[in-house]
Each structure stands twice: as structure tokens, then as C-alpha cells.
């Protein structure tokens, strides 16, 4: 019965690890094409994959940095705090949710507003922060955006809003729906006063925000392949029980159907905006030159 005898084997020991020590975050792997590049180069390329042109998400402050003239952005005083008017509770208190978003982003709510220069043109600016509750619009977002419109009306400055939002904020119920009305009301006045309003749609801009101020720009610019629409693709798929066509609700698709003016790569976005400002608001630049001379 020798063949049943336990065979001798050797235990293999791993050799000492001789990994190259790469600090976390040095490399970036594109989530679309898996291309790997130095994170530093990725940032230099404005968080766009050089290989497949995937436009990654950009935080609000980074967005301000790459869109407006250096050091030109002056944020509005951060005096509005969100609250919990419905005492909303799902799996978690809405207040607790807010606090965790605030910690995560360093913002009080999902939009940064202020005043900035873009190629020397003085503009009122609003930039949405997707990392804060999916950029959703509650009372504070609606109020800050409305105040931005009102400032642009009062000071007669063009306004640029860079959108990134999943829509209205459910936890504020009907009040978030009313923000659609409030912001659109402010735009009606802006239009009447002939003050230019440029919207930039980034991935994603949908639902309540798309069905209010995001759709109402004099010119609407979008980054490539951003999800843009009213209803979410999942809801549509469930409703009609069909596979959605390729590219459905993406920037290019929406442009081809006539609802976006320009789809532009991130690196060209600033120039596109400057061109438009030069057509619509040459006075916004002159104003600045006068004031800098007087200084």
C-alpha cells in the first residue's frame, strides 16, 4: 500500500516583498478605458483622459480654478444654512445626512456662488457641487442661485452657472420643487433686462435642475458625453420596458435633438465662454478696465 503513503512536499515561502513604493494617488486609472497615467498629468489635463476623452467629475472649487481667471473668484459670504423643514427621516435623519455632506465637501450646501472674471469679463458665477447630495437642489441651493440672478440683474453683470445635479432634493419635498419656480422667476426678469445668461451642463444634469434654470440659458454649453435629461434612464427603461438607444440622453444626443447649443471639450470651455461673453456683454469687460484704471 505504499502508494497511499503521504507524499513529502515542500512549503514555499514568499520572498521578501520588494515592491516599488508608490504613494496612494500617484497614479490614475481612467474609469472608462482603464488607461493609466500619472495623477499629476491627469490633473494637468483637467481630469480628462488623454486616451478616450472621458470627462471626469470635478469638484466645485477645482471647477472654479479651471474656468475663471486665476485669483479672480470672490465667493459670496456663506450665510445660508440648510435646515430640515419636513423633519425628514428615511434610513437616516436628513440633518445627519447634511452634516456628513458638509464634512465631506467643506460646503454648507451644494452650490458655490460669487463673482469672477472670465477672460477679463466680470461675471456672476454659480458652480454646483455634485459631491454634496448629488448636487441636489433644496431651499439653500435655490436661494443662492436666485440671489446670484438678482445680483447679476442689480449690477448688470452677465451670469454663468455650471450645473451638476441629479435634480431636486427629495428630503425637502415640495419646497425643493418650488425652487424650480423661484429660480425660473429670477431668469424671467433677467431676460427682460437683457442680461446674458450662460449655462454649462456637466455630467450629470437632470430632472428638477434641468427642468428649470439649466435649460433656460441664452446659450447652453455642455461637456462631452454628460448625462442630460428630465427623467432618469432607469425610470424610462422601467416605464417603456425597452432597451434605450445608445448615447441616449448624452450631450451629443441632446444637441442633435436641438436642446443644447454647443458641446465642447473641457479644455476649450473657457474660450467658448469668453467668445460668447465678448458677443453678448462687451460692456462687462469695459467696466472692469475702467475700475482697474481708477485704482
Amino acid at each position, binding site marked *: 500500500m505504499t502508494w497511499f503513503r503521504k507524499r513529502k512536499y515542500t512549503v514555499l515561502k514568499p520572498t521578501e516583498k520588494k515592491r516599488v513604493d508608490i504613494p496612494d494617488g500617484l497614479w490614475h486609472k481612467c474609469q472608462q478605458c482603464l488607461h493609466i497615467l500619472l495623477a499629476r498629468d491627469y490633473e494637468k489635463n483637467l481630469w480628462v483622459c488623454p486616451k478616450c476623452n472621458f470627462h471626469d467629475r470635478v469638484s466645485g472649487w477645482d471647477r472654479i480654478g479651471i474656468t475663471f481667471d486665476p485669483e479672480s473668484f470672490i465667493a459670496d*459670504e456663506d*450665510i*445660508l*444654512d*440648510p*435646515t430640515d423643514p*419636513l423633519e*425628514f*427621516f*428615511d*434610513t437616516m435623519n436628513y440633518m445627519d445626512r447634511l452634516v456628513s455632506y458638509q464634512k465631506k465637501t467643506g460646503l454648507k450646501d451644494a452650490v458655490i456662488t460669487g463673482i469672477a472674471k472670465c477672460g477679463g469679463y466680470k461675471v456672476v458665477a454659480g458652480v454646483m457641487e455634485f459631491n454634496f447630495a448629488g448636487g441636489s437642489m*433644496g*431651499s*439653500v441651493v*435655490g*436661494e443662492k442661485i*436666485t440671489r446670484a440672478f438678482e445680483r447679476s440683474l442689480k449690477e448688470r453683470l452677465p451670469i454663468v452657472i455650471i450645473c451638476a445635479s441629479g435634480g*431636486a432634493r*427629495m428630503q*425637502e*419635498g*415640495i*419646497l*425643493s*420643487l*418650488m*425652487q*424650480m*419656480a*423661484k429660480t*425660473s*422667476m429670477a*431668469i*424671467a*426678469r433677467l*431676460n*427682460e433686462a437683457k442680461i446674458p445668461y450662460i449655462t454649462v451642463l456637466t455630467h450629470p444634469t*437632470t430632472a*428638477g435642475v*434641468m*427642468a*428649470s434654470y*439649466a*435649460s*433656460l440659458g441664452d446659450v447652453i454649453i455642455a461637456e462631452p458625453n454628460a448625462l442630460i*435629461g*428630465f*427623467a*432618469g434612464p432607469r*425610470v*424610462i427603461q422601467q*416605464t*417603456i420596458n*425597452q432597451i*434605450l*438607444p445608445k448615447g*441616449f440622453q448624452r450631450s451629443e444626443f441632446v444637441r442633435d*435633438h*436641438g*436642446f443644447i447649443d454647443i458641446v465642447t471639450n473641457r479644455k476649450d470651455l473657457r474660450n467658448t465662454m469668453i467668445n460668447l461673453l465678448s458677443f453678448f456683454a462687451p460692456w462687462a469687460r469695459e467696466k472692469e478696465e475702467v475700475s482697474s484704471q481708477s485704482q
Partner: protein
Amino acid sequence: MALATFDFEKPIVELEREISDLLSRENEPGISRKIKALEQKLEKTKIDIYSKLTPWQRVQVARHMARPHSLDYIQSIFTEWTEIHGDRCFADDMAVVTGFGNIGNQSVTVIGQQKGKDTKENLARNFGMMHPEGYRKAMRVMRIGERFNLPIIIFIDTPGAYPGIGAEERGQAEAIARNIRDMFTLSVPILIIIIGEGASGGALGIGVGDYILMMENAWYCVISPEGCASILWRDRAMAARSAEALKLTPPDLLKLGVIDEIVPEPLGGAHRDPVSSFQTVRSALEKRLQELVKIPGDVLIERRAQKYRKMGVFLENKPEK
């Protein structure tokens, strides 16, 4: 045909059946006394049940198939009702009816989201879910109303703007956004009444007004209870709980300053006594209309803007200076 009933109405149905049983034996001695007792009990049960409807039960009443829909109200309230069709761009959206009529001595523009009474009509009406062409049709008619100084009365009753491929291709978001903005520029009175469901942008797309009425058993919210439940709990069956959390009932909305007045319904809901519902709605509309028509157009526009400017709840720390 008996009305479809809800689970929470079971005690009522039971009593009603008992009474009708007794009625068939009316000639037996002592029966009439029994019937009377039961009828009193029925009345009390009805009040008990209907005065304590949970938000979710109210949502169900608002969706009752037999509940009067926009055209029922329109045809019984407005004389010389003349419907017009189409958005002049693409199609006629049957989910919304538009036209003109008279209420008392006042000629008005009338718009209403229209659900069907049965499956066949519901398919034609797309269950009251509008496409972009519907919103554009409504705005076209509102503009005519403005041009000829006809105040606008709008009946809201929709489970939402339609989420479909065609709707997206033709710019659902743009159509709604533009309507919301342009309704702030109309120089005639806009009177809104939410008669059933007021779901999100689908409702607001024709829902900006000077005075907002809401039926007692209607709901109005940023999302349907089911939609909210499937996002928050990934389970549509949690709708009862999200209906509670969303504060979508008329008393809640009145408190939040989103609506101006609640229109009472007959016991058990408008579908149990449509004729009296038409009466109350008619007189509520007439009363508010009489006030609004006295206000000049530019004042109306300013007031409307101020009304919505105030909406939202947040904390503000005024900077010390």
C-alpha cells in the same frame, strides 16, 4: 356599478351591505328600527375613517378611477366650453385639454390635465402624463388668453410628466422649464386648482399661479411616494412610509405656504358625490377669480414673483456690520 373601494373602507362596505340586506326585508316587524341604528353607525364609521385618512390613503383616494377628472369639472362649471387642440409644432397632446369658456359672466382660458375613466381612455390620454408638446400647447393657449385678457384657470391632475424616449427627444425638461419661466410673465390672473395628483415638474410645468387651491383629497409633491420609496429604500412597497415623510397632503402644504386654500370634498371623496364637488369647486373658483380680475396686470406679475420668491426654508446668519 358599485364604486371600487379601498381596504380601509371595508367597515363601511360591510355596514352598507347589512343595510341593503335589511332593506330587502323591509316588511318584517322591527326592521326599520334596526336599519336606522345601522345607518347612524354607518355615518359615524364614515366620519371616523375619512377624517383620519393617512397620507398614503389620501394618495389612493386622489387616484380613484371614478374620481371626477378635469373635463368633468370643466363641462359642468364652464358654459360655452370650446376646446382647442395642438401645439402648432408637433402634435396634440391628449393628456391635457385646453380651451375657453364662461364662468358666471367671466370668459376665461381653461387648461386641465386629463386622465381617463377606463383603460381605453387612459391609453388615449396617456394617464394624464404630458409630453413636451402638451406643455407647449398649454403655453400657446395661455398666450392667447393673455392677448385677449382672459384669466387662466388650470386643473392639475397628473402622475408626472411622461418619462419616455420621445418625451426626452423633444425636450421635456426644456418645455417644463420654459413654461415655468413664462408663466411669470403673463399679465392675466392665473388660478390653479389641484384636483387629484400633483406630481413634481409634471404639475409645476403648468402650475405657477397667483392663487393655488387644492382639493381635500389631493396630493402635491416633488416626487411620487413610490418614486421616493424606490430611491430611498429601493422598495416601492415602502410608499406608505414615504408618503408620510414627504408631507404631501393639503394641510401640510398650507402650513408650508405652497398652497393658499383647501377645497373641502364630500365625505369619502369627490367621487362619492361629484355634483356637490362641482358646486364647491365652482364657487371657490368664482370667488377667487372675482378678486384677481380687479388687479392690474403689472401688479399681478409683481405679486406672483414675490409669492414664489419667498418659498423655501433655510437659516440665514446675517453678517454683523
